């Protein structure tokens, strides 16, 4: 998927002028609320008309003031998943799911309802009224409805913002798997860096009606490290935890991590703040932190007066954050060996 943007729009005192292009099947638009990302999404999907400019999705012209082209939203084949599911209240789950499918030209129907219902685990909901669904179920049906329209592009407009934390991370695997399983490229819109890290490969950063640039979610997280209250969030997917003495031992790279709030059986996602990692130059004799990892420094980066230290341990990487004076005292440079201490309780389980 390639989206080329060159548009202008004035809305009262808000002035939007964006020019850029983003390529890749897992792309994102990142920006604070009021940055213009919603307006941009509305113009991409045809729900709002720019004042002037051009919009291309691959080689299809969606809008061009020069060529006098303005494709109607239903002709763009860009399906939206909204923040709140917005299911049709007068239709049941099945009719909601099939709304777009029925209107899709037969030659475009590549995704079958049966396969989708299977992937999204919706079978048991089919006979229910949409008002009898929980928030997470509603969002899954909304996702299914959008995917079944067999769109060229799936736009997810803050689809997780209305859900609470535990549900949010239960939905993410569905969002990803549906796109990968059926080959639907998506554009993921959010103001959360961790969501970007989990969902996208490249991100268009939007601020005050302008596109600031294209970045990777990791670069974005690194740049925001000093100003984010939680620092840089390391996201770890851990499998095969074993309970032992009230703690969970999870294999990680060639070693293992000891975690208090673990879960045996299924794969779990954990976040670890860069600020919860303490670095030692030499092996400390004895410490209370349950994890002590021998690491190699592979990279150092600056973020607003803080130093980010990229560590490699057993084939896995972690980002730790220290103040500049600490970096100077420890004389950290690329290639150094350090010891990272992490408390078992520092890992927060997301889902």
């Amino acid at each position, binding site marked *: 998927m390639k989206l080329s943007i060159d548009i202008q729009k004035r809305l009262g005192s808000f002035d939007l002028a964006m020019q850029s292009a983003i390529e890749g099947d897992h792309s994102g638009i990142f920006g604070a609320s009021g940055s213009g990302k919603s307006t941009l999404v509305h113009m991409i999907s*045809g729900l709002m008309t720019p004042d002037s400019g051009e919009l291309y999705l691959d080689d299809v012209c969606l809008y061009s003031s020069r060529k006098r082209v303005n494709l109607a939203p239903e002709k763009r084949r860009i399906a939206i998943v909204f923040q709140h599911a917005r299911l049709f209240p007068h239709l049941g789950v099945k009719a909601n799911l099939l709304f*777009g499918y029925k209107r899709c030209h037969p030659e475009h129907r590549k995704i079958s309802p049966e396969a989708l219902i299977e992937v999204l685990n919706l079978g048991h909901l089919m006979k229910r009224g949409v008002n009898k669904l929980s928030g997470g179920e509603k969002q899954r049906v909304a996702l299914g409805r959008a995917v079944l329209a067999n769109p060229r592009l799936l736009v997810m407009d803050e689809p997780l913002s209305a859900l609470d934390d535990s549900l949010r991370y239960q939905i993410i695997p569905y969002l990803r798997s549906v796109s990968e399983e059926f080959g639907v490229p998506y554009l993921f819109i959010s103001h959360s860096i961790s969501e970007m890290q989990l969902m996208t490969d490249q991100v268009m950063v939007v601020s005050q009606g302008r596109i600031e640039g294209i970045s990777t979610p990791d670069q974005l997280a690194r740049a925001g490290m000093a100003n984010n209250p939680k620092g840089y969030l390391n996201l770890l997917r851990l499998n095969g935890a074993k309970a032992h003495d009230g703690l969970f031992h999870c294999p990680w790279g060639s070693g293992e991590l000891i975690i208090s709030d673990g879960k045996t059986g299924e794969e779990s996602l954990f976040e670890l703040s860069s600020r919860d990692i303490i670095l030692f130059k030499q092996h400390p004799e004895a410490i209370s932190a349950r994890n002590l990892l021998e690491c190699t420094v592979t990279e150092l980066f600056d973020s607003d007066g803080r130093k980010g230290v990229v560590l490699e341990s057993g084939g896995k990487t972690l980002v730790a954050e220290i103040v500049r004076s600490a970096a100077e005292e420890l004389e950290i440079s690329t290639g150094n060996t350090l010891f990272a201490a992490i408390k078992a309780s520092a890992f927060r389980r997301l889902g």
Partner: protein
Amino acid sequence: MNLSPEDITAILLSLKIAVTATLLSLPIGFATAWLMVFRHFRVKVLLEVLINLPLTLPPVVIGYFLLLFFGRNGWGGAMLRAAGVEFIFTWKAAVVASATVGFPLLVRSIRLGMESIDRQLLQASRSLGASWYDTLFTVVLPLSLRGMIAGSSLMFARSLGEFGATIIVAGNIPGVTQTIPLAIYDYASSPTGTSMALSLCGVSVALSVIILLLHEVIGKQLETRREA
């Protein structure tokens, strides 16, 4: 209950006129409400005033305007004559009078229903491949159903009670254009008509109560069906 055969005719005629007026106005009312809620155009305020005018004007004034328009020298009258349609002083004129007077009530209720529809539902529909008219019939229409039922029952009840405009364009001809209110008017102006008038008043009250009850029941049912 003391009803003469003429009274029965008046009751049936009232029902026929009210049903026809309501059914004819529904599609126009729906389209007008849609225009007012979802479209932006320049003369919207003017249209708004025009639609609501019958609500505040004395019905006699409306009747008089209709008489001028559909009368011998009016445009409407000329067109109808060319088409060979007898209009003034027939039940059709009573239908038009009722429709004009009840129309603002109908539009108002449908509008209220439409205004409560979440705009993102319409955006979702469009992005899922439905054109604007497809969205109109498969999303807007079903979600306006409650407003349409509320508006229809109000309008139907208003039509049953229509007097001022009707007597001017349709007259008060027993068996042809005499509806319940006109019959009551006749009885009230004769010294011996009190009990006859009261019987028809009773019918009026009964009809109104039935309509309002139906309105409540259907509204409740739609609500529970939506929650199911």
